[in-house]
């Protein structure tokens, strides 16, 4: 107990980093020099596709986020809801047919951990609520922030630097926070 400075639930989330600092992909560990140019071009292309979608569906708009939190349009709920349905069906198909990556590695999804706090799931509802405060104040979540920056809304750069400061503050305080 005393030597455990870094809790073992570290990064059992979407951080994609394991507690030993290594990669934490859903795919297997083999052949992960990871810097294959072809794959990187693939990620860039998928990102570009997503950035266009964030802009043209207006998900990246402060106005649309306000409309969502005021329950005055189905637009955002339709987008998030149908995205979840398509993603869920895809994940089930990948599991059912044991699909592999293009590189032939098995695809594994690790479950989110509950953490060790006396308050079950503390990190999810406390962290989630803090994120929600920021989401509504800024009117953009992390993906759209980068799309807006690319779209020429330069002041978003300040929000991104602030978000990095928030990430750093969490990193500095995390051992004192209930997870």
């Amino acid at each position, binding site marked *: 107990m005393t030597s455990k400075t870094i809790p073992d639930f570290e990064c059992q*989330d*979407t*951080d*994609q*980093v394991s507690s030993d600092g*290594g*990669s934490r*992909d859903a795919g*297997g560990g083999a052949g992960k020099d*990871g810097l294959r140019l072809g794959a990187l071009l693939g*990620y*860039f292309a*998928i*990102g*570009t*596709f*997503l*950035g266009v*979608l964030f*802009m043209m*569906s*207006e*998900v990246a708009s402060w*106005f649309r986020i*306000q*409309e969502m*939190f005021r329950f005055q349009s189905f637009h955002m709920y339709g*987008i998030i809801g*149908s*995205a979840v349905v*398509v*993603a869920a069906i*895809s994940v089930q198909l*990948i599991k059912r047919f044991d699909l592999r*990556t293009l590189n032939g590695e098995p*695809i594994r*999804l690790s479950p989110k951990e509950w953490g060790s706090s006396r308050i079950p799931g503390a990190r*999810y*509802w406390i962290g*989630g*609520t*803090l*994120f929600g405060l920021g*989401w*509504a*104040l800024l*009117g*953009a*979540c*992390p993906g759209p922030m*980068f799309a807006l920056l690319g*779209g020429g809304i330069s002041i*978003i750069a300040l*929000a*991104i630097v*602030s*978000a*990095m*400061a928030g*990430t750093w503050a969490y990193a500095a305080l995390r051992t004192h926070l209930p997870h």
Partner: protein
Amino acid sequence: MEFLSQPWPWYVAGPLIGLVVPLLLVVGGKVFGISANLRHMCAALPAPEQLKPSFLRYDWKKSGLWNLVFILGVAFGGFLAVAVLGMPDAGASISEATRSDLMALGLTDFSGMVPAEIFSWSALASPAVLLMVVGGGFLVGFGARYAGGCTSGHAISGLADLQLPSLIAVVGFFAGGLLVTFVLLPLILG
């Protein structure tokens, strides 16, 4: 091309966004989660290692390069959309009810993607705007890492894999968002 410049309907955009999840899994077994990049960016900062909390000391190239390239693509996609199809006029396409609520908060400019009265460098002189852009950004970064994911990691990747922790996080996202929308914004903008 004209119809492409209109706001893309949810039943087109939503399923296509959902496809990003299996695409990333199949290309390289990667889990869709954008806010992890904020951590990778902090880890990549050229600060002396001893100044960095342990959470930021890891091989960011090994675990995060793919994701950083991915968000570079997202930014390029934002650029491409505006360059080819023009800046979406989101302020004009929101519902009448939202428009009148926002007017009651003092907003007058409904052109473009984001309100110029908040998202411009000159608007930063206002404490309310400073709180929204700088405070909002800070909470997005802090909260996303504390919760272990943001809208992409929890609301899309997590819910798609039927993860209860992600559902709790998403309920939190909305609790915080509603508090800001109905309590805080009227106080600071009103």
